[in-house]
C-alpha cells in the first residue's frame, strides 16, 4: 500500500491542495488592534444582533464561512465537507452555524488549535480525493469563553499577568483540489501533534502549558522533512502568547534548532497591540483563525510570503479537570503552506 507519510509523523500532500480564499470577522477590540485592515468585517456589537453571546459566536462562524465561500467563487452546495469547531461546551457555535450552511459537517475540538486541526484534515480529505472543496472554520468569543472558563463579566477580579485575552472572531478558509482555480497558497505537509504535558496546572498560564507541545511538533516536523527553521519565511504559532512564545524560543534553542525571532511569531502577539491591556496577548480558536485567514492569506496574495509553517496550539483543559487538579494537556498541529509557484 503506497503511503504519503515521511519520517515518523509527517504527511506529504502530493496534490498540494489549494487554499482558494479565506474570510475573517472580528470583534470590536480586535478591530482596534494592529490587524484591523486585514479583517473582512469588524463587528462592534458583542451580541451581533442576537439574544445571546453563544448565538452571536455562531453567527460569526456563519458569516465568515459564507464570506469565504463567496470569495472562493463557490456556493455552499459545492462544498463537500465543512470542518469546524470552537471553545464552547459541545462546540455549539460550529454546530449551529453548520445547521444553517447545509454542508456535510465534521465538528472538531482542538481548543485553540482547532483552525490548524481542521486545515490538516481538510487538506488530507481534498488531497485524497474525498472532497473537491472543503471548508474550515473556527471561532471564539470573549464573552462565551469568560463565562465558561472563568468568571461572569461583571465579577471584579484581577487577571493575572500571565493571562491571555480570548479573541472575539471567526475565520474561515476554503481548501480545494480543483486545478482550474487560482490559489492563494497550497498546503504541502501536515504534522499532526501529540499531547505533551509538562505538568503545568495554572489555567492562567496556558502559553506555558502549550509551548512544549509546539516544540515537540516543530522538532518532529523538521526531522521528518529535513527542513530547518531557515526554510520558512514565517513560523506562525497559534496562541502561545508572550510567555509561551518566549518559552518556545528557549526550548528550541536548547534543542539546537534556534528560531529566528524575526521570522517566528505568534497569532496571540500579532492580533493585539501592547497598549490594549491584554496582558500576554490573544487566545481562543478565533485568534489563529482570523490571523491566518485575514492577515497571512493577504500577505500570500501580495507575494510577501512564500512559505509558512502554520502551527496552532491548544490547551486541552476543562474547568472540571482543572478543579480536580489535573495538569493541562497541550497540543500543536502544523501545516506547511507554500505560495503557488
Amino acid at each position, binding site marked *: 500500500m503506497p503511503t504519503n507519510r515521511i519520517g515518523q509523523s509527517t504527511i506529504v500532500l502530493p496534490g498540494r491542495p489549494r487554499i482558494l480564499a479565506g474570510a475573517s470577522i472580528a470583534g470590536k*477590540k480586535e478591530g482596534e488592534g494592529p490587524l484591523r485592515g486585514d479583517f473582512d468585517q469588524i463587528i462592534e456589537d*458583542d451580541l451581533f444582533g442576537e439574544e445571546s453571546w453563544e448565538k452571536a459566536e455562531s453567527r460569526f462562524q456563519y458569516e465568515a464561512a459564507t464570506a469565504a465561500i463567496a470569495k472562493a467563487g463557490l456556493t455552499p452546495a459545492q462544498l463537500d465537507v465543512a470542518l469546524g469547531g470552537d471553545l464552547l461546551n459541545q462546540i455549539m457555535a460550529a454546530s449551529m452555524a453548520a445547521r444553517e450552511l447545509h454542508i456535510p459537517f465534521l465538528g472538531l475540538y482542538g481548543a485553540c488549535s482547532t483552525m490548524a486541526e481542521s486545515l490538516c484534515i481538510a487538506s488530507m480529505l481534498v488531497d485524497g480525493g474525498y472532497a473537491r472543496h472543503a471548508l474550515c472554520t473556527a471561532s471564539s468569543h*470573549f*464573552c462565551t469563553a469568560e463565562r465558561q472558563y472563568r468568571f*461572569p*463579566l*461583571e465579577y471584579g*477580579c*484581577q487577571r493575572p499577568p500571565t493571562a491571555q485575552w480570548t479573541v*472575539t472572531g471567526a475565520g474561515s478558509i476554503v481548501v480545494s483540489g480543483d486545478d482550474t482555480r487560482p490559489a492563494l497558497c497550497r498546503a504541502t505537509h501536515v504534522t499532526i501533534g501529540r499531547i505533551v504535558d509538562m505538568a503545568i496546572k*495554572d489555567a492562567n498560564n496556558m502559553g506555558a502549558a502549550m509551548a512544549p507541545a509546539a516544540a515537540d511538533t516543530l522538532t518532529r516536523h523538521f526531522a521528518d522533512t529535513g527542513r530547518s527553521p531557515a526554510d520558512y519565511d514565517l513560523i506562525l504559532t497559534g496562541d502561545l502568547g508572550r510567555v509561551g512564545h518566549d518559552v518556545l524560543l528557549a526550548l528550541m534553542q536548547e534543542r539546537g534548532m534556534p528560531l529566528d525571532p524575526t521570522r517566528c511569531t505568534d497569532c496571540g502577539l500579532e492580533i493585539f497591540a501592547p497598549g490594549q491591556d491584554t496582558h500576554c496577548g490573544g487566545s481562543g480558536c478565533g485568534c489563529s483563525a482570523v490571523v491566518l485567514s485575514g492577515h497571512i492569506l493577504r500577505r500570500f496574495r501580495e507575494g510577501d510570503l512564500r512559505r509558512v509553517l502554520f502551527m496552532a496550539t491548544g490547551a486541552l483543559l476543562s474547568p472540571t479537570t482543572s478543579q480536580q487538579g489535573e495538569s493541562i494537556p497541550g497540543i500543536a498541529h502544523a501545516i506547511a503552506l507554500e505560495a503557488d509557484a
Partner: protein
Amino acid sequence: MNLMMNLLKAFLVGGAICAIGEFLVLKTKLTPARILVGYIVAGVFLSAVGLYGPIADFAGAGASIPLTGFGHALTTGVRRAIQEVGFIGVFTGGLTQTAAGISAAVFFGTLIALVCKPRPKA
C-alpha cells in the same frame, strides 16, 4: 474630632485586612473564592477565641465590613442565641445575625440582574 478618628481607624484597619488578602493572592496563587472562604472561617475562629471582638470595638466598620467581620457576626450571633434559647441557638444564631447582609445581596442581586445586562470589558 471623634468622627474623624473613627473614620481613620476604619480606614487603617480595613485597609490592612484587605492588604493581607492581596498579599495572599499574589504570594500563594489562591483564588479569590478560596481566600474569601478562608477569611470568613478565620473570622469565626478569631471571634471564637476572643481576638476579633477587641478589633471590632476599636475599628468599627474597618472590622465589620471585611469578610472576617461576617465570620465575627456569625459567631457573636450563635453565642447570643445559645445564651437566650439554648442548644437550638447553635443553628439559629449565625444566620439571624447576618440575615440583613445576605437578604440584601440576594434581593439587590436579583433586582439588578433583572434590570441590567452584563457588558464586555473594553
